[in-house]
């Protein structure tokens, strides 16, 4: 895969918080039109990397390119083509779902008639039609759906989803997967972090695995797993993403005699 066809390029990214190293010289490319899984154990710098990719955090060193252009916190034109579902969801709790989505759509410069149409359609599709509840009163799963809707409402070319499926019921997850597949079929790119490895295995075509502190240990194509194949690494065959992940990040075993 050449650099020209990468929707996202991370080049020698380093992020430090004071003396703490969160991301260590991370370089990777995400091909356009791919569903890319970005995996790692807790504290391995996944959210920090997404923060650098979406303008929330400044890299200490290195750079990020999105859709072929250098990305910084002030890259307004690129942000117009990006959709983000942050780990914290980024919802304004006092608002109603339609108000929040309309606010987001207007911020992306959508025409008023388009704002109303897309908000209404998203609310109906995601079953968020209870207009009496503010976002603060929504359940965790419903809040996730709203955050997902906010990420896609302006029909972006690149979508960043931080833990998108947790807390959403199976019906909702199936719907989101269906939308995401169609999204990539149209040549658009999805960058997902998740701890649900089975979902990533079924959904993503490429995966990168990082360990603490934000060090890339493996990246590659995982479509072979769908066809009963195996990933060959370190002279071993791994028949599931979970097996590979545990091998790379270190399988843990601790015995507590009181537990």
């Amino acid at each position, binding site marked *: 895969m050449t650099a020209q066809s990468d929707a996202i390029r991370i080049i020698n990214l380093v992020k430090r918080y004071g003396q703490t190293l969160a991301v260590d010289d991370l370089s990777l490319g995400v091909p356009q039109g791919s569903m890319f899984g970005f995996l790692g154990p807790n504290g391995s710098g996944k959210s920090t990397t997404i923060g650098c990719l*979406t*303008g*929330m*955090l*400044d890299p200490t060193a290195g750079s990020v390119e999105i859709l072929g252009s250098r990305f910084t*916190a*002030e890259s*307004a*034109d*690129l*942000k*117009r083509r*990006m959709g*983000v579902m*942050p780990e*914290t*969801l*980024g*919802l*304004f*709790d*006092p*608002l*109603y779902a*339609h*108000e929040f989505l*309309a*606010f*987001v759509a*207007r*911020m*992306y*410069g959508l025409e*008023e008639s388009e*704002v*109303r149409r897309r908000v209404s359609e998203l609310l109906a599709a995601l079953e968020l039609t209870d*207009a*009496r*509840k*503010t976002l*603060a*009163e929504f359940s965790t799963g419903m809040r996730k759906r709203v955050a997902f809707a*906010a990420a896609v409402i302006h029909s972006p070319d690149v979508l960043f989803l931080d833990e998108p499926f947790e807390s959403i019921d199976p019906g909702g997850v199936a719907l989101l997967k269906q939308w995401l597949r169609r999204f990539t079929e149209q040549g658009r790119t999805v960058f997902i972090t998740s701890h649900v490895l089975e979902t990533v295995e079924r959904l993503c075509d490429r995966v990168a695995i990082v360990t603490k502190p934000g060090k890339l240990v493996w990246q590659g194509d995982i479509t072979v797993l769908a066809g009963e194949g195996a990933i060959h690494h370190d002279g071993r065959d791994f028949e599931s993403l979970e097996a590979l992940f545990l091998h790379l990040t270190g399988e843990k075993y601790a015995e507590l005699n009181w537990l």
Partner: protein
Amino acid sequence: MNWKPMGALIGLRYKLMWAKTRSRGGKIALAAIGFLLAVLLAGVLTAGGVGAGILAIRSGQAERMAQAVLSHLFVTSVVGSLLLGFGMNSVFADAELRRFPLRERERFGARHFLGMADPFWLFVLALEAGLVVGLYVCGTYSFWYGAAAVMLLFVCGYLLTRLLGVWIERLMSTRSGSMVAVGLIMVLSLAPGTLTPILRKQPSLQAGILGVLQYSPPFAAAAAMTHQGAGAFPGLGLIAAWAVCLVAALVALERRPIARRQSARTAGVTWNGPLDRAAALFGPRMAPLVAHWLRFYLRNNRFRILYPFSLVLAAFLTYNIGLLLHVAGGLFVAALGGFPVVAFLGTSRIAVNQYGYVGGAFRRFFLFPTDPAASLRAGSYAAVLLSAAMIPPAAILWAAFAPRPLDPRVALMPAMNAVTVLFWFHGAGLWTSLYGPRRGDYDKALGNDLSLLGNIVFMGTVFACVALPMVLGPAVSPEDWWLTLPPAALAVAFYVASLRGASMAFLARRERLLAVLEGKA
């Protein structure tokens, strides 16, 4: 009672407080606490505490003096805590404590022991204890009866404040709650000014009220302090009964579930409401952000209470400072400081800590294809717009009650001062939002969750409004109307410069803000 986990929780509170001193802001706060302790010591030794005790003995009316001092401290601490939020922050919510093996009464005890250990309440206790020391040192009164009385009074003061706080929170969760709360605050605020002249004219009514007050906690404490042996027991018994009743009322009220506020809307959605139309004044790029911040303010319980209350407080300050000044035209001089309160009180909490109540949603502002600092400016525009909207009604009210014949300059000068304070405060608020952020609870109607810097700006502006008429005194007259123009122009210039400067500093501060707002700093 299971004291061990309760002790561990109290220990945790102080560990958390100490952990905050590791940051630069924490060190500044620690220095401020040191200063407050010095003030506390001075307070204990002067009029509020030991000094009052000495004065009580020398005047020969120890009980009457003790009643006056304790009542003043009691009312001031309760009202001050409710209005300014000091001593109202809960360290742990009941829901947080449910994970531990504590029974309901143990959770109740742990929460309120922690609440009483707040520095604000310890300061009140120190002032009350000073009176006991004064009475003991200079008189022949028992130290232990006095100490028991002030401890019980301190507990009663705390419990009453909590009770009122919980009740107001419950009230605010109902649809008409904010209107009822504002009505009650208006009645309470205006009552002293209205009742004082009536009481002066009718000594019999005064005696009747004093008779009823004998059963109040401060009067009961005063009786216990200034009587010996068995004579102290009725006072102690009465105040202990108050404490028991307040605990029972607080338990009962806390058990009542909070009604979840439901929107008046039953079906359908509104796309382009009055807030969107008002925000459209700021142009198509800023309009969605300004409309968002207007909603954010207008749905906040604290704003809903403080906004109309600012009008009441302006009237209260003008009237009472005017009485204190004892000069011709005192009301006009008082209005120069009292009136401008309307220009910042309503929006004060959010304006000086703009992102403190948005939590993780702060990230959202960086995802939009705009200058991220636009959110800071838009929030400030919304606050200025809302506060400025309160100036015309206040001006009409002032014009209606100002001394006759009405000189237009007398009407203009307080309004110009309000403009000065409006732009000064909101300009300063931009800087405190960046350099003194603190994670707060958007849903809380009461409590002080501002940072030290935020409190300095807020309290400093309130103090300036109160002190200005005192400093000016009779020196100012309507002839000097033009003197109000340069400060207003300077304040506008400061606001414009702050908008630019804070916008430039915004990106550099964002990671720090994020850490504070997401509880990582």
